[in-house]
C-alpha cells in the first residue's frame, strides 16, 4: 500500500467537495482496500463515506419503495429487509463472508459494478432507482458494462430505491473459488410484468434476459421456460470456471429455480 491522506466528512456535501478536490470515495473498503494493498490503486486521499448519517439506514417511502442509504452494509440490509423484501435480504446475506458483509456496502458494490457482483442483479431486476448527489438514475440506465456505470466523475451514490415486487427470488450459482456469482439470476414479478436480471454471465455485466421476461410475464412458471432456448452464449464470459456455453445454460437453470423459489 502507498501512503494516502484520509478524511471522514459527515455530510454528502462535504464528501462531494473532497472528492471534487481529487479524493476517492471509500465506503466499506472491501474492494478498494485489497486493491490498494496489492499496490494496484494509489489514491492520494480517501474520502470515507461511513460517517455520513444521511447515507445510512433503511426506510420505506410513501410510494412503498424501500430506500437504502448507499453506505448501508450488506449485513444491515440482510437483517432489515428480511420481512419487507426477502429476496433482497437473502441476496445481501449471501455476499462474501461475515467480515465482508459487516463492512461492504450497497453503494460501493453498485459503483464498482463488478460483472460477478450480486447487487446489480437485484437493482436491475427490481427496476430500482439509483440516487446520487445530483440526480436519480433508473437501473436500466445505470449499468453500462463491466466495471462501468452512468456515474460522472466525482458523482457519488447516496441512496437506492427499490420498488417491492409481488414475488422475487435470487439464485446464485457460485464461482467455486471466489464465491461471487458464476451466474446469478434475480427474478421479480410485479403487477405489470416480470423482470429477469442476470449477473456473472456476460462480459458486459448485468443484463436483462428479455425473452424470459416476456414468457414469464405471460405465465409465471418454470414450465414456461422448458421449451425455451438458453440465452446465446455469445458475449458470455469464458474462463477457468466455466465456458460461455456453460454460463448460458446456467442462466436458464437458475432462472427456472428462481421462479420456483419465488
Amino acid at each position, binding site marked *: *500500500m502507498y501512503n494516502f491522506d484520509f478524511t471522514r466528512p459527515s455530510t454528502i456535501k462535504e464528501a462531494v467537495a473532497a472528492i471534487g478536490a481529487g479524493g476517492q470515495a471509500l465506503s466499506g473498503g472491501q474492494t478498494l482496500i485489497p486493491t490498494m494493498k496489492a499496490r494496484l490503486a494509489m489514491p492520494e486521499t480517501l474520502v470515507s463515506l461511513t460517517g455520513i448519517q444521511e447515507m445510512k439506514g433503511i426506510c420505506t417511502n410513501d410510494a412503498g419503495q424501500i430506500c437504502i442509504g448507499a453506505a448501508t452494509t450488506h449485513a444491515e440490509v440482510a437483517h432489515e429487509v428480511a420481512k419487507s423484501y426477502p429476496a433482497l435480504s437473502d441476496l445481501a446475506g449471501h455476499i462474501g463472508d461475515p467480515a465482508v458483509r459487516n463492512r461492504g456496502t450497497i453503494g460501493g458494490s453498485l459503483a464498482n459494478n463488478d460483472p460477478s457482483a450480486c447487487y446489480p442483479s437485484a437493482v436491475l431486476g427490481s427496476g430500482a432507482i439509483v440516487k446520487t448527489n445530483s440526480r436519480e438514475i433508473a437501473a436500466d440506465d445505470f449499468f453500462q458494462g463491466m466495471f462501468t456505470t452512468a456515474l460522472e466523475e466525482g458523482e457519488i451514490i447516496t441512496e437506492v430505491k427499490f420498488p417491492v415486487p409481488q414475488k422475487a427470488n435470487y439464485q446464485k450459482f457460485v464461482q*467455486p*473459488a*471466489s464465491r461471487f456469482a458464476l451466474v446469478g439470476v434475480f427474478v421479480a414479478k410485479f403487477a405489470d410484468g416480470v423482470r429477469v436480471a442476470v449477473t456473472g454471465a456476460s462480459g458486459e455485466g448485468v443484463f436483462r434476459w428479455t425473452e424470459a421476461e416476456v414468457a414469464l410475464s405471460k405465465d409465471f412458471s418454470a414450465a414456461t421456460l422448458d421449451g425455451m432456448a438458453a440465452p446465446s452464449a455469445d458475449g458470455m464470459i469464458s474462463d477457468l470456471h466455466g465456458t460461455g456455453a*456453460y454460463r448460458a445454460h446456467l442462466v436458464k*437453470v437458475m432462472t427456472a429455480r428462481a421462479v420456483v423459489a419465488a
Partner: protein
Amino acid sequence: MPKDSGIGVASKRREDFRFLTGRGKYTDDVALQGQLYAVMVRSEVAHGKIKKIDTEAISEMPGVRAVFTGEDFSEVGGNPAGWLINSRDGTPMREPKRPVLAHGKVRHVGDAYAAVVAETLQQAKDAAEKLAESAVIEELPAIVDMAGAISDSENRVHDEIDDNLCFDWGWIEDNREVVDKALTSSPHVTTLQLVNNRLVPNAVEPRSSIGEYDPGTGEYKLTTTSQNPHLTRLLICAFVLGIPEHKLTVVAPDVGGGFGSKIYHYGEEALVLAAARKLGRPVRWTADRSESFLSDAHGRDHLTTIEVGSTMDGEILAIRTSTLANVGAYLSNFSTVTPTFLHGTLMAGPYKVPHVYVNLKAVFTNTAPVDAYRGAGRPEATYSLERAIDKLSRELNLDPIEVRKKNLLTPDQFPYTSPVGLIYDIGNYQNTLDKAIELADLKNFESRVKKSKSNGKLRGLGLSTWIEACGIAPSNLVGQLGARVGLYDAATVRVSATGTIQVMTGAHSHGQGHETAFAQLVASKLGVAEDAVEIVHGDTSKIPFGMGSYGSRSLAVCGSAMDRAVDKIIEKGKKIAAHMLEADEIDITFENGNFTVNGTDKSKSFGEVAFSAYVPHNYPLETLEPGLEETAFYDPNNFTYPAGAYLCEVEVDPDTGKVTICSFTCADDFGNVINPMIVDGQVHGGVAQGIGQALTEQTVYNEEGQLLTASYMDYTMPRADDLPFLKVDHSCQTPCTHNPLGVKGCGEAGAIGSPPAVVNAVVDALNRGGHAVTHIDMPLSPHRVWQAMQG
C-alpha cells in the same frame, strides 16, 4: 473403566491452549532489536535473460540498507536435490544449480532475482518496486507443457539441458520386457490416461525467515518456518553458504502447517543469513499470500498412462505405467525422490500383482518447483491404480468391490515382496474393506440411489483400497537408491532431579499434536503423569539431530527413537535402584513407575531414583555416572505400511454438474494408536485435502507461464461446507512388526486414499444416470462434470 491417560487415550491437545488463545509464537511474531526488512524482487515473466539490474537506482532511496542480486551469490553453492536418480540407461539425472537468487536467467514467474533490505517493510517494498521497474529482462519463450518441453531442443529451461529432461527412470528396468509380454498376453487390458493435478500447498502460515549474525562470536541464527530444521541447517552449511555447522542454529518455532512445502530449504533462508552477516543486524522476510502461490514448492502434476492387464473375471496380471512428472524450473530437495521411489514402488498397491513396470520422465518447465505434498508420490500411485481398477471393473461388467477382493493380498501372504521392490511386513486388507462396507451401510445404498433420483439427483458410490509406505528407511537401503542423507532419527530423554522429563525430538510439529502424543508415549512408559513430560522440538541447539516431520514418519521413526531412549533410562534406573535397594540389578523390575525387587515389596519410585541420580549421596559412583539423561538414534529396518479402504457416496446435480459428497467412510489400519482423537484429526485433514484435490483445487499456468490461479479468487480451497461429516475408523489394527511401538503413521492416509474414491463415485453416479462417462480429470468442478455429461 476407561483409562484417562496413557497410550490409546484421547488426551486433549496441550498445544491447543496456546494456539486457541492467540499465544502461539510463529516466526513472524519474533521481534528483534534493530531488525531490517527484506523484500524479494520476483520475476514477472516465466522465462527471461537478465540483462541489467540497476542496483544504483535504488541505493539512495529512503531506508535502503542493501541490495542483493544473483551476482552476490555466484561464488557460493546451490541448493541441492536430496536424492540422485539414475536414468534407465544408467546415466545420472541432470542437476542444474539452484542459486540463492536467480543469476543470468529467470525461470519461472516468482523466481527471485534480487532482494532489497531496508529499515521498514514499506521502504523495502518501494525500493523493490523501483528496482523491478528499472530491471531489463529479455523475455524468452516459456516452456510450460511437459510433452512439448521434452520434444523441443531449441527452448531450454536450463541452457545445458537440451531436452528439458531431468531423468528417464524405469522401475524395475530389468522387468520391463516381462511386463510387456504379460500385458500382450492378458485377455483384457484397460488403458487410462489421467492428470494428477498440480496443487498449491497453501499452509495457513506463509513462509517466513529471520537471519541473525553475531560478529562477536561468529554465530548465526535462522528462525524459519520449517518442518525440518536440522536438514535446513545441513543444506545451508554443507551446500549453500558454507557456514560451519556448529556456528548455525536453526529454530523452527510454532509453524502453521506445511503439508510438505516447508520440508525444503529455500533461497530466502540463505538470503536473510547472508544479509544479516553483511549488515550486522537481524534481517527478516515474510511471504505475502501472492508470493506463497508463486514461490512455495507446489505438489503433484503428473500426466500418466496406466495399463492394467487382467483375466476376464478381473484377476490382475500386469500393470504398466508411463508418466511425465513436472519438476518445475529447479530441483527442490525431494523433487526427484517423490515421483520415483515414493511413487513407483507403490504401483502394486495392496494387490497381488505378478508383474509391474513403471516408467517416469521428470521434466523441467518454466513453472514453480514441484515437490512432495501430503502423501508425496503415493497419492499419485493410488489414484492411477484405483481409477484404472474401477475402469477395468466397469469394462468387464464386474462389481468393483469384488474385483478388489479378488486381488487383495491375504493375511497369510505377509511378509510380501512386491514386484516393485517393497516388503510389506503385515496387513489385513479384507478387514478394513469389510469394516468400511459395514460403516457405510452399503446394504441400503440402492434405496439411497432411488431417493436421490426422486430428488432429481444422480447418486454414485466410489471405493478405493489403498496402501502407502511411511517412515522412509532404512538408511543403508535409501543410500543404495540414491539418497544423500540418512533416514533415521534421534531423541534425548532428560530427567531432572525432581523427576520431570524433557524429551528432545528430531520430529517437528506443525499442527500434528506431537507435544501431546509423544508425552503420552513417554509418560505411560515411565509411569509418570503426562504433564510431567515436556516435548522439545524445532531447535537445532537443543536437539541432538533429526530429520524432521514428513512422510508420516514422526511417530514411527522419531517415536521409536524416543522409546529406545526411554529404555536406556529404565536400564540405568534399574542399576541405581538396585544400589539403593541393596539388590541385584537382574532382580529389579520396572512397572507402573516403580523399581521393585522381584518377589518383595521393596521398591523405589521413578522420582526417588531420579533424585538419587542428581543428588548421588547413596549411589554407585564407582560403576555408574550420576545424572539421568539418555540419547538414542533409531534407524528403522523397513518402511511401515498403513492401508485402508475408503468409500465415498456422492450426488451429482445433472442440471449444473455440481457434486455433493453425501458421505465419506474411512477404515484405516495404522497399527497401534497412541491418541485416537489426534489420529481422527489427521484423517479428517487428509481427507479434506484429498477432496480438495478431487473436486476443487486447480493450478493453471497459461502458455506464457503466468499463474492464472494465483489467489483465492481463482484457486479453490475446499471449505467446511464442501465436506460431509466423515466416518473415521481405525479399529482394524495389525501392529507394525519391526518398530518397537507397532505404529505405522497416519498423517497422509486421508490425502492418499480419498481422491480416487471421490472420482470413482462421480463416474459411477454419471453412469447410473445414463451417461457413459469413463473418466473426468480432477478437479471435478461443476463445469467439468457438466461438460462430461454433454458427451
